[in-house]
């Protein structure tokens, strides 16, 4: 898949969302775009149509999920966006475990795993997806530049 998904391709992504996370109609109001590294992005129809008159487009919409061997891992933003619709393969972490998660540490969790991925949350704050390892640990899929252990200087600017 590449570029704006056809209705059939979009339906396939919707089925994966439903099967893995119980998300129904999550993509209903969006156009879905497949970009590099099998990333699934979403935006509104009017944004896409406006983009046709622009040159040198670097990016469009929000990255919500990544397709890997017919399974979807949700980005931090995808998990937060679909938070109210996620019904399965989700684990609720304590604040201490959420901090460890954001440092990229693998956690021992009793993951209700019917998938290779689970969504983590701490209350109503969603933390993205972790991969369930054969060793029983869950490995957070946090982009390196968003790990708190780096003590990364903020993107503060003017």
């Amino acid at each position, binding site marked *: 898949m590449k570029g704006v998904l056809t209705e059939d391709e979009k339906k396939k992504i919707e089925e994966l969302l439903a099967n893995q996370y119980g998300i129904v109609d999550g993509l209903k109001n969006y156009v879905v775009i497949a970009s590099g590294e099998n990333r699934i992005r979403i935006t509104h129809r009017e944004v896409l149509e406006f983009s046709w008159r622009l040159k040198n487009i*670097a990016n469009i919409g*929000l990255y919500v999920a990544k397709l890997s061997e017919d399974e979807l891992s949700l980005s931090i933003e995808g998990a937060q966006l679909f938070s109210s619709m996620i019904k399965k393969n989700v684990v609720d972490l304590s604040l201490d475990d959420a901090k460890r998660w954001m440092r990229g540490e693998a956690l021992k969790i009793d993951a209700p795993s019917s998938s290779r991925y689970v969504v983590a949350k701490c209350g109503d704050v969603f933390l993205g997806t972790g991969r369930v390892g054969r060793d029983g640990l869950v490995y957070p899929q946090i982009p390196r530049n968003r790990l708190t252990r780096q003590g990364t200087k903020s*993107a503060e600017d003017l």
Partner: protein
Amino acid sequence: MNEWKKQGVISPSEDLLRLLRELPDMDIKSYLDAVSRPLPECFRVNTLKLPESRIIDLLKSRGWSFERISWAKFGYRLLDGPEAGIGSSMEHMLGLIYIQGPISMIPAEVLEPMPGLTVLDLCASPGSKSTQLAQLMENRGILVANDVSSSRIKPLVANLQRCGVINVVVTQMDGRLFYRWTKEQFDRVLVDVPCSSLGIVAKDWSAASHYSEKISNKISRLQQSLIMSAYDCLRPGGILVYSTCTLHPVENEGVISYLLDRKMDAKLQPIYLDGVKSRKTLEEWAGIKFSSEIKKCFKCYPHDNSAEGFFIAKIKKGS
């Protein structure tokens, strides 16, 4: 001024000292005092992720205390908190907050970017104002975030992602040429131009030590081209906001004057803000008299609010 150099606190260039002496409303000691201190730590609560009250409760429960910034929706000034700092916090990394200077929050507010509008941020990287615009638009309508530099696109994209912005197209174009493809296509245009940065010396002291008059003169020509392009992108009846974080009149009043002289339907609009100290714009500089309309622009120096120095103009295109 030699005292400042001796202390090693800050070493303004000769050209900057000359400029400071020539600015009729400048108190040089207050300016140098202000830019020698760190900027206040401020942030926006990102309501694209969670409701404001929920994020506030979360931050308080984690030990931070803060107060609201009166002129910016969702803006807060940090008072106290854990030693590690809010810039490396989980809340920051998750995009629940965005760290941004308090005066830097003004241009997007002044632009009035309502949900459903088509909005352009012409010089967008690293994305403070673009993410703020998307938030004020509630992720509805169309936001185009442009920057000319490939190296600056990466942080722009990362920040838009972290803040959960859906309604955005990121382009990498020379802003001076942007109007060629999108003439009169936007309801709102923000042009936060590259500048000599003399209002944010507290953040980057090299702006003061390396400053020369040539920088302002050269960059003002770029600013003139950018504001003309931005204006041409605007629909009749639309609003343009021009902003800089510098003090030099050729980059501020001079650029607005340049636009007003060439676009007869451009009308400056007054800027109303609550609780921020501002000062009068200049009526003339280097023998050039500016339009009396320019007094509608907003200007503040770093020592006015113990924050950044900024110049902001709000312009409406006649319909």
